[in-house]
């Protein structure tokens, strides 16, 4: 927030006898928390603002030195004023707060032992902090019945203390529709209108937002562990390209849960449900644990004994024409680099399809060489005008969608501030705002959840949207070429968007490669460039599909198709595939043939999949939780995740395993890299763009007062009993030579650098609210700067050169539909779809169609269809989208069980009758 308020005037105030200089636009609670002064509070949440509902944050305010009486005020509702004197620990204030807490506790059940919040409960913290130690209420307690809210969230309504944080987050902050507060007086109820799955993609944040145990993590519940018993590591979400920071917690070798790790520039306090609940693939029963080797081509692979792996690798890596390495956008930079090192730059290929490869390269080219800035999520939140072209953000990069929802409030918030309502005064601001929104423009072929923010959502084919984009750019700047055949509606809309963008202070253009069209990226770039040419600071956010797509693009290498060509031409016969399922990247027939032609296929992965099942040598490697690595988000921010727990010996990190292979190829005795730092350093030396990563990230030699940073909290229990059933003698703790973190509770208790915070805890604050003490101010940046290193910066000196529109007409055959991809938050991403809870939310494959397209064949909405794309038939449900243009059908992609389809393309759709067909949707 500190960037928004101009001026940032400082004011002098006195708190508990000490003088401080504080920001004028803040309230007393925010100021006190940022100074590290404990003031109990419930309803205030830094991201949600103040409403003054719980009355717990009472303090005493004296107008000036001559004021001896003072008055009791709610610190969250009081702006700072020059010279005021604040006392937070006077006896009447303490008494007042204890009384408030006592009344909140009247109906709170005696649940803590079986409550999942226990040990990280804001209510527990506040009870201790206010000193309300014993209950004196002897009457009956109010009870409620609970609701089943789906596979993510467990509901236990008895525990509610009516702080309203949940509705404020779910409805107002995240734009959810199916959750509310019901009933009246002391019977208010927070939930859905009936049992059912919470529809919002951000429902998981209720777990952290709720100060008690009303909403708890259902996935954690199935393998429950207290916060103090978790071994944690700072991690980065691997389920989309945004790169949200997470805290991953483990106990007894099982990954237990994911919590949000604060990063003021990226995800702030929140996470999306895919990021929070997708972690369970790490515990999947199909995890690879043992090396499997196929002894001869037609046999099934068998578990390797002793040094069999060494022998097989020896023969595979020496007896071949050429080794080709296929990298992966879901593997770390270091693992990809190691593979490149093994096979040589000219034999290294990106493991992504040709179209994805070209689009990623284009996006990277635009951001690296163009003058437009690649915004962080925080910067998107602070935007005043947003234009989204052809990207369904809620499904492909959910946290960006959440940021856009906040951007929609900026104009009304600024207007409110002009009338004297401070930004943090949430209730007043919302009352004033009503339905006013910042100008947000959404253009997408089918309806998206963000349409509701848009003044006039534009639904048309991808080509038409690209045309609209070019038209907008041309209207902003005459030098940008427009397209010829712009229709009236496009022209009108383009001028409206152009005017809004030109008048904006922080315009953000968002597009991405999910629509599969290069022109869309060019159009988006042209708009941003046009604004830059007018000296308007514009931001261009381009969404890429996977967690390290950007990083892989920066490494260099060629596309998957090029690799296939070389194998087909017989130039190479050995494949090393790194954490990649090629069947998700190309047609089955092609991949099958490539494998057929290869003499040796070596696969390194953590889960069984179609590619792994074809491997001649299948080597299990650690997932994000068992290895360290750096990934680059779509913003261009390089962030590192660390081992949460040491992997089993048979499951090494990818980079370490590839190092073993390098040993064999080069006939060396020593492993090329002693530890992770050495890979990172060598990568920086070889690829200059990455050298800054090694220079700036704290290496394994980093210590605080000679001590490592502890992964386990001080209260970690069971040290001398956890492994006592195996051997009563306590083993030596596992050592971590790859990072400055220790698998222990012994080490530094100081606050580590922001990128190394393994968990949050402050004396008195066991709950997630302790985050505030790690920040320079609530909702600000982490102390010492937000984690991550930006690798992509706009080229401000570049002469603005616009892209020439080159829109080729689609090759839609007569009588066929143009089939475009529809991504789903749950299901379209490979790893999270293996997680049990997420799997329950994966929809059956469906096709989005316009009613009129179906009407012709007299089939109703519940019907299903056979889609025939170049001879490949898929059976799917039909969903009506009233806005999708005629002749276009949106088909869900990458859902489990669906074959690879190179969308967009032309395809036949045959309507089947109702549900009579017993075929399972999605199966060919």
């Amino acid at each position, binding site marked *: 927030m500190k960037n928004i308020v101009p001026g940032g005037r400082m004011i002098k105030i006195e708190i508990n006898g000490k003088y401080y200089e504080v920001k004028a636009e803040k309230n007393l609670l925010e100021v006190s928390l940022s100074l590290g002064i404990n003031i109990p509070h419930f309803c205030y949440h830094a991201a949600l603002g103040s409403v003054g509902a719980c009355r717990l944050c009472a303090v005493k305010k004296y107008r000036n030195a001559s004021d001896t009486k003072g008055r009791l005020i709610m610190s969250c509702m009081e702006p700072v004023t020059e010279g005021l004197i604040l006392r937070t620990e006077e006896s009447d204030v303490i008494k007042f707060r204890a009384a408030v807490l006592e009344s909140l506790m009247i109906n709170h*059940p*005696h*649940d*803590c*032992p*079986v*409550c999942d919040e*226990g*040990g990280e409960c804001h209510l527990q913290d506040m009870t201790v902090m206010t000193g309300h130690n014993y209950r004196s209420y*002897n*009457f*009956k*307690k*109010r*009870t*409620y*019945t*609970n609701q089943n809210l789906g596979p993510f969230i467990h509901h*236990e309504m*008895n*525990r509610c203390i009516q702080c309203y944080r949940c509705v404020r987050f779910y409805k107002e902050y995240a734009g959810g529709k199916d959750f509310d507060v*019901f*009933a*009246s007086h002391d*019977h208010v*109820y927070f939930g859905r209108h009936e049992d059912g799955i919470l529809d919002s993609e951000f429902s998981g944040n209720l777990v952290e937002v709720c100060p008690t145990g009303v909403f708890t993590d259902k996935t954690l*519940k*199935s*393998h*429950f*562990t*207290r916060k*103090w*018993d978790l071994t944690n590591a700072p991690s980065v979400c691997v389920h989309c390209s945004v790169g949200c920071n997470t805290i991953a917690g483990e106990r*007894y070798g099982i990954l237990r849960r994911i919590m949000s790790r604060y990063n003021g520039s990226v995800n702030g306090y929140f996470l999306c449900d895919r990021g929070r609940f997708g972690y369970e693939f790490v515990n999947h029963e199909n995890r690879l644990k043992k090396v499997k080797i196929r002894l001869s081509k037609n046999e099934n692979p068998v578990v390797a004994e002793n040094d069999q792996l060494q022998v097989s690798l020896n023969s595979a890596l020496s007896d071949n024409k050429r080794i080709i390495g296929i990298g992966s956008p879901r593997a770390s930079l270091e693992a990809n680099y190691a593979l490149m090192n093994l096979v040589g730059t000219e034999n290294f290929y990106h493991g992504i399809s040709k179209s994805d490869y070209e689009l990623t390269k284009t996006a990277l080219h635009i951001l690296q060489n163009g003058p437009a800035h690649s915004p962080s999520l925080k910067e998107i939140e602070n935007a005043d005008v947003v234009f989204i072209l052809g990207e369904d953000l809620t499904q492909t990069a959910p946290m960006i969608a959440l940021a856009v929802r906040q951007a929609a409030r900026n104009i009304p918030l600024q207007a409110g501030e002009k009338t004297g309502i401070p930004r943090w005064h949430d209730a007043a601001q919302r009352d004033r705002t009503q339905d006013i929104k910042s100008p947000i423009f959404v253009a997408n072929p089918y309806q998206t959840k963000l349409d509701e923010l848009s003044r006039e959502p534009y639904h048309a084919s991808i080509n038409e949207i690209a045309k609209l984009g070019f038209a907008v750019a041309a209207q902003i700047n005459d030098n940008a070429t427009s397209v010829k055949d712009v229709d009236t509606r496009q022209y009108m809309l383009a001028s409206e968007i152009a005017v809004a963008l030109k008048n904006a202070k922080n315009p953000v253009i968002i597009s991405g490669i999910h629509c599969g069209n290069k022109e869309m990226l060019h159009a988006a770039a042209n708009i941003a460039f046009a604004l830059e040419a007018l000296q308007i600071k514009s931001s261009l956010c381009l969404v890429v599909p996977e967690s390290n797509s950007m990083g892989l693009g920066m490494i260099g290498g060629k596309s998957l198709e090029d690799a296939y060509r070389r194998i087909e031409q017989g130039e190479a016969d050995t494949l090393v595939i790194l954490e990649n399922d090629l069947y998700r990247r190309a047609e089955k027939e092609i991949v099958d043939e490539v494998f057929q032609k290869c003499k040796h296929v070596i696969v390194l992965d953590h889960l069984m999949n179609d590619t792994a099942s074809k491997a001649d040598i299948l080597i299990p490697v650690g997932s994000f939780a068992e290895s360290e690595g750096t990934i680059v988000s779509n913003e261009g921010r390089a962030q590192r995740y660390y081992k949460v727990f040491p992997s089993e010996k048979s499951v090494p990190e990818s980079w370490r395993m590839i190092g073993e292979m390098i040993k064999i190829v080069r006939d060396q005795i020593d492993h090329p890299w002693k530890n992770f730092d050495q890979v990172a350093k060598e990568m920086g030396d070889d690829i200059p763009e990455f050298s800054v990563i090694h220079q700036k990230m704290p290496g394994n030699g980093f210590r605080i007062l000679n001590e490592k940073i502890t992964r386990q909290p001080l*209260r*970690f*229990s*069971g*040290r*001398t*009993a*956890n492994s*006592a*059933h195996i*051997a*009563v*003698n306590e083993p030596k703790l596992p050592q971590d030579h790859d990072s400055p973190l220790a698998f222990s509770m012994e080490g530094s208790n100081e606050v580590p650098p922001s990128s190394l915070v393994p968990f949050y805890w402050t004396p008195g604050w066991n709950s997630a609210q302790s985050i505030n003490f790690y920040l320079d101010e609530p909702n600000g940046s982490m102390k010492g700067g937000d984690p991550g290193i930006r690798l992509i910066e706009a080229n401000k000196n570049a002469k603005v050169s616009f892209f020439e529109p080159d829109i080729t007409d689609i090759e839609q055959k007569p009588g066929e539909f143009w089939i475009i991809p529809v991504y789903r938050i749950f299901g379209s991403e490979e790893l999270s779809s293996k997680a049990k809870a997420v799997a329950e939310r994966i929809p059956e494959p469906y096709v989005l169609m316009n009613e009129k397209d179906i009407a012709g064949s007299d089939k109703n909405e519940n019907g299903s269809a056979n889609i025939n794309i170049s001879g490949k038939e898929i059976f799917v449900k039909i969903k009506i989208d009233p806005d999708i243009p005629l002749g276009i059908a949106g088909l869900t992609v990458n859902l489990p069980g669906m074959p690879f389809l190179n969308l967009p393309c032309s395809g036949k759709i045959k309507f089947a009758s109702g549900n009579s067909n017993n075929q399972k949707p999605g199966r060919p």
Partner: protein
Amino acid sequence: MYSIIRSIWLTFLHAFHKRETVLYPEEKPYLPPRYRGRIILSRDPDGKERCVACNLCAAACPVDCISLQSAEDDDGRRYPEFFRINFSRCIFCGFCEEACPTYAIQLIPDFEMGEYNRQNMVYEKEHLLIDGQGKYHGYNYYRQAGVDMGVKGKGEGENEEPPVDIKSLLT
């Protein structure tokens, strides 16, 4: 001089006093019920495990010798999937019993736990769980708690109102 003789005399007199020591193990000493000896897990009056696997005993344990994992049965009732005490580390301080919110974990007046093999000092749940209520009778945690985990329905516990009808505005 006098005091030395007096001391010798008094010491001599002790030879004819009643003996304080007993001939253990033939003769067992009396130990009060609250003596802090071997740890057991007790059952509630309905005969179900009292332990709800809240982990408080493990957290309170100063030598970290308690380790457990919680699990849920079909009714959602929490119980320890495993419960392990490494008695070779235990100092019998009784903090676990103090921390226990359900009277499940109790220290009893039995101290005869000597073993030749240290590994045998590791007790699992089957070694710890007894069939009775131990020292504290009549307490069933789930009747006091607000949760509905198969023991009682919502609002049927002690000191509970029936569940709120959220569709009514008046009551």
